[in-house]
């Protein structure tokens, strides 16, 4: 049942992505991307609910669950920010990442079959996992906004303004504002995750995972500090947001 939810969520996000790309190619606005992504979110919730029941705990116990939780978080923040700030194209750019994360979770062996009940749930462990993965969702979306900015910036720089993509991309200022907002949100949530991580009992293998997570947090905090006090060009901020998110994936590799 949980795999079916995941499979359908992946297909819905893929449809949203392909539909959005067709609209972009035609130079029209992709109004349906939001609808496909809402449907994908509902299926992700279905998956997480089933896994949560099986685990009798927050479904963040294996890499597959974390990847799906990350995809859910990314979709959730897109739906929260994209339509509100009229950045509908954010969905077209987020959808492939959602498809990628969920496809990785669907690979045999990544998602535990017949998950065991968590008999010794720890509140700090659950809080650490949930807030951290939520944070990575926001930071992933910041990376997506960063990619969108880099494309727009390049097109403006080389005067390539004829494409449907250029017409549909939101203004550079709005992309940078959303990117910064998402970085603050992600770093704030990550701070909670790190604090909870300090408080939870840790085994030796978890120690290295925790250190990597701490390095990621310091990296994002430093980026925001530089942006706030010194200032950064949009291009450097966007590149840093993308690079930092790619680096943060190391955290998942250590699980």
């Amino acid at each position, binding site marked *: 049942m949980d795999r079916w939810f995941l499979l359908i969520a992946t297909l819905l996000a893929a449809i949203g992505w392909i539909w959005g790309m067709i609209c972009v190619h035609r130079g029209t606005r992709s109004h349906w991307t939001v609808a496909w992504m809402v449907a994908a979110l509902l299926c992700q919730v279905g998956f997480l609910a089933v896994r949560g029941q099986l685990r009798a705990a927050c479904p963040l116990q294996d890499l597959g669950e974390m990847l799906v939780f990350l995809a859910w978080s990314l979709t959730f923040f897109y739906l929260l920010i994209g339509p509100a700030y009229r950045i509908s194209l954010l969905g077209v750019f987020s959808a492939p990442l959602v498809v990628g994360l969920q496809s990785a979770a669907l690979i045999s062996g990544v998602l535990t079959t017949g998950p065991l009940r968590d008999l010794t749930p720890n509140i700090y462990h659950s809080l650490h996992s949930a807030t951290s993965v939520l944070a990575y969702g926001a930071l992933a979306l910041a990376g997506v906004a960063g990619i969108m900015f880099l494309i727009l910036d390049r097109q403006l720089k080389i005067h390539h*303004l004829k494409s449907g993509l250029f017409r549909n991309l939101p*203004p550079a200022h709005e992309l940078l504002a959303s990117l910064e907002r998402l970085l603050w949100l992600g770093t704030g949530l990550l701070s909670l995750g790190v604090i909870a991580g300090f408080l939870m009992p840790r085994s030796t293998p978890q120690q290295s995972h925790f250190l990597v997570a701490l390095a990621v947090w310091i990296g994002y905090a430093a980026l925001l500090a530089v942006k706030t006090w010194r*200032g950064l060009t949009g291009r450097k901020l966007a590149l840093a947001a993308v690079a930092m998110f790619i680096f943060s994936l190391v955290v998942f590799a250590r699980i």
Partner: protein
Amino acid sequence: MELLCLGLNHRTAPVEVRERFAVSSLQLGAAASDLATLADASEGVVISTCNRTEFYLAASDASQALVLLEARLTARESLDPGAASHFYRMAKSEAAVHLCRVVSGLDSMMLGETEIFGQVKQAYQAALAAGTTGSVLNRVFQRAFGVGKKVRSETSIQEGSTSVGSVAVDLAEKIFGHLKDSEVMILGAGEMSRITAQSLVSRGARSIFVSNRSFDRAEALASEMGGQAVRFDEWQRVLERVDVVISSTGAPHALIHRSDVEKVRRARKFRPLFFIDIAVPRDIHPDVAEIDEVYLYDIDALEQLASEARSRRQLQIQHCERIIDAELAKLNLPGT
């Protein structure tokens, strides 16, 4: 009853002729009433914009009504008989197709412009209020509005900016979003700068600084635009705060160099900076574009973008005309 159209526009008449037939928006109803008093005519609508004046009427004898209308117009304006050569005359379906082309912006000086739709609607409503429309003109005009909307929604006839000023404004909006928080500096109080800056102000730009070698001219333009004059040796100080720089001085060499911008980057916190260089020779050295947060467009780049948009609109004409023909064929309009 037959539908008729008599008119002149920017292609058939020079401005000194067009202005004599122009009707103010407040007089459109009275002009339509006057039109409907012609012998044989029972309905009338008068459209008048800066580029055209057109008389639409429904009459039982088309050729007679046209002769009477022409005679009345030339007599009223004391024109010599040769002035009639400026008029175009259309009847029945040809007149209906023409109205649809006008409403869709296909007959406008700026192909695909949208303002004409509202202007025709205003003319029709004035005639409706004056009671000079009936079964023929009501259906023809309402159909034309429907066709105009369809043309605009199903084609890209209105897409892209077709003048240097509008390209610059669209680019500014693509960089800064709404312009209400944007500040603009004009270097050189020339006409092109003024027009471009006015476009930015009309879209909400917050404040304007004008710097010119002659401070008097800077003050005059600043006062006209509700901005602030800046002495020419102080423009670098203002560069720290503005978002858009429009430059069109008559300087024989580049005025703004990379080093000028590098100096203020830190103070600007690396915010985006949009340079519009409409001077020839160019005022802004091309090296400035290599700075990360700078977007530099010179007159050739802007003109090329405008020209490409105009070409794209030209390519849409046949598509628009097919829509007009198909839509008019669906209905058996009275008077056509």
